[in-house]
């Protein structure tokens, strides 16, 4: 009996060893001649279709350097999956769904290939990326490790019928105009003594990433395109613009224009709210599920009454990058450039309805056919030069968490003033920035 156990144990251990060696091997390739580039993309069905098409074209044109494609494995978030891949050293050569908020962590862990080392980087970067965005994707050491690939500018969707019924003119540019409309649009439609139609839904969940679609987007608009950390390391939202945004949100909750409630389903589609903050991905969702009489339009994010300047917004960008686990970074760069050609971008737009980060896209002849067929996307394409990304900080998530806690206390619950909320949040963020400098 003992002998059988010992034998079984030996076989099991041998099997585990073989599995570990084969799975965790950093390259997993048999020889240089068999070397294939690996490429991961986002795992939504449209992007999979786009990636397959691009890879198949590349493989036809480059029989000597084949690309093996797979969508990023399923997980709670793609960032978590990439993290697991980094730890097990099984990252792909090229990945195209990098959220810039995690890039600084990757850079500090020395796992990304610096892209501006390639001789033809500058020409591609300056041809493709709008000038206003050139420095937004640069890391703290001055290098560029991510190539801005696509974006989803955040705007306000509004219910056309609700606005027309009450004779409200669009766009609502300032906070005052917004609240004048809110006064009319927030109503008790069935006279039971309770509001059942609100101006706007602002998610009350305090999970950090929710603040991208309310406070952060509104702060970018109110501050003329600033992010949380200024160039000199100071906290930018500790400013009149930050307080004005908190005041706006606080006023909205106190007046009952924004519901302090959790809902199931899409309240904009259910016509319980008149306006909704979202990106272009929402168009296909609305088109699929809307009633025949449901019409919607777009507006830029409202700004404080005294604001003068362009309409800025959060761009929710995604970037492409090359991991250092790649055994042929030169070839990976060639493939990445192939992903970024005008033709690839056109197919990205046509297949996924996602906007490539590209200069003058709505006025480019190659893309004009698409925008004629899909006029809703023009509004988003015109916003591209004025999109803003996120700070290059390893404490970004924590900063958003701090803001979220203060948003909850000051704006939703009204337990402190906007000034107190902003001041406390900025003090805590300042100590994080100090920690980063240590």
């Amino acid at each position, binding site marked *: 009996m003992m002998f059988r156990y010992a034998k079984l144990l030996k076989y099991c251990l041998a099997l585990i060893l073989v599995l570990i060696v084969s799975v965790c091997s950093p390259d997993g390739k048999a020889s240089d001649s068999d070397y294939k580039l690996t490429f991961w993309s986002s795992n939504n069905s449209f992007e999979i279709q786009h990636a397959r098409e691009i890879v198949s074209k590349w493989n036809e044109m480059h029989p000597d350097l084949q690309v093996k494609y797979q969508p990023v494995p399923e997980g709670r978030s793609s960032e978590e999956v990439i993290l697991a891949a980094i730890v097990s050293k099984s990252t792909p050569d090229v990945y195209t769904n990098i959220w810039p908020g995690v890039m600084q*962590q990757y850079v500090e862990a020395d796992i990304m290939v610096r892209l501006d080392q390639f001789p033809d980087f500058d020409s591609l970067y300056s041809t493709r990326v709008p000038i206003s965005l050139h420095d937004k994707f640069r890391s703290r050491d001055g290098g560029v490790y991510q190539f801005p690939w696509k974006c989803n500018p955040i705007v306000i969707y509004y219910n056309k019928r609700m606005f027309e019924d009450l004779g409200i003119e669009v766009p609502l540019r300032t906070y005052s105009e917004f609240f004048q409309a809110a006064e009319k649009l927030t109503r008790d439609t069935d006279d039971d003594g309770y*509001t059942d139609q609100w101006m706007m839904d602002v998610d009350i969940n305090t999970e950090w990433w929710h603040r991208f679609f309310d406070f952060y987007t509104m702060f970018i608009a109110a501050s003329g395109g600033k992010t949380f950390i200024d160039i000199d390391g100071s906290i930018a939202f500790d400013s009149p613009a930050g307080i004005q945004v908190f005041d706006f949100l606080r006023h909205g909750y106190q007046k009952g224009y924004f519901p302090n*409630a*959790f809902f*199931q389903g899409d309240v904009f589609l259910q016509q319980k709210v008149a306006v909704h903050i979202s990106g272009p991905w929402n168009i296909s969702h609305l088109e699929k599920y809307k009633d025949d009489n449901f019409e919607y339009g777009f507006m830029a994010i409202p700004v404080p009454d005294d604001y003068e300047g362009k309409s800025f917004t959060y761009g929710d960008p995604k970037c492409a990058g090359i991991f250092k686990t790649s055994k042929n970074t030169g070839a990976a760069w060639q493939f990445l450039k192939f992903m970024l050609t005008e033709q690839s971008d056109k197919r990205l737009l046509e297949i996924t309805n996602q906007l490539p980060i590209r200069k003058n896209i709505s006025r480019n002849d190659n893309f004009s056919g698409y925008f004629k067929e899909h006029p809703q996307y023009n509004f988003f394409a015109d916003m591209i030069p004025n999109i803003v990304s996120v700070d290059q900080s390893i404490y970004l998530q924590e900063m958003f968490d701090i803001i979220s806690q203060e948003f*909850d206390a000051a704006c939703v619950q009204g337990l402190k003033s906007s000034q107190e909320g902003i001041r406390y949040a900025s003090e805590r963020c300042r100590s994080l920035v100090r920690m980063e400098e240590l």
Partner: protein
Amino acid sequence: MSSPYLIFFLIFSVYPILFSLTLVFHRWNIISPMKFVGLENISYLIHDPLFWKSITNTFYFLLIHIPLQVVLALVLANALNRKMRGMTFFRASFFLPVVISGVVVTILWKSLYSTETGLLNNLLIHLGLFKIPWLTSVHWAMPSIAIMATWKNVGLYTVFFLAGLQGIPRHLYDAAELDGASAFQQFIHITVPILNPVVLMVVILSTINGFNLFIEPYVTTGGGPVNSTLSVVLYIYRQAFSFYKMGYAATLGFSLAMIIFIVTLIQKRVLEKDM
């Protein structure tokens, strides 16, 4: 003979515990090398107001959840400990929430609790009462979560009590009846004392499960409003998997384990004294 167990124990218990203990003295974000920081994590924990807030919240949750669960489980077990038509169906019904996924149960309750569109508030309005901000008020959120957690788990403890009740000799009740004891007196003087070991087990298991409160606040409130439903485990989860502060998360984890150990030890001493 014990080798398989030993290997299992070394890989899945000893190694993680030792690794976590190492993490307590390090700063580590998974992808960068570990950095030794000595007692920095422990010092940060002592001065971290959110950690103490999460501890207070968890104790508040336990204060509502455990008595509610013990009393409700005992009442249900008594009601189910008799012969009547459809008893198996009723017993299975009360046990059903235990085997349903916690996430599913929580999503359903979130829908019931919705301030504006929830079934509970619609019912209150029809009764001429007012809406309750179940999950959106600082005062209501944690009790609402405690009710939800009780509904989910009470079936399991009902089964424990039911097993305990079925072990009580019938002749004790017969003798009490002859002596003229009422049903309530029989319950207080026979059922409760004999069930004391089961009560001890239920209290200890509820406490350990209660300290691990996570799914309910994670799915419903995210720890809000104003951190009033931030449990210790939710806080650990955030530190580990939102901010990748593995060293601090390990420190929080060890502290929680020590607190659970001390509390259950006190409960055991107090309840065993009464036996």
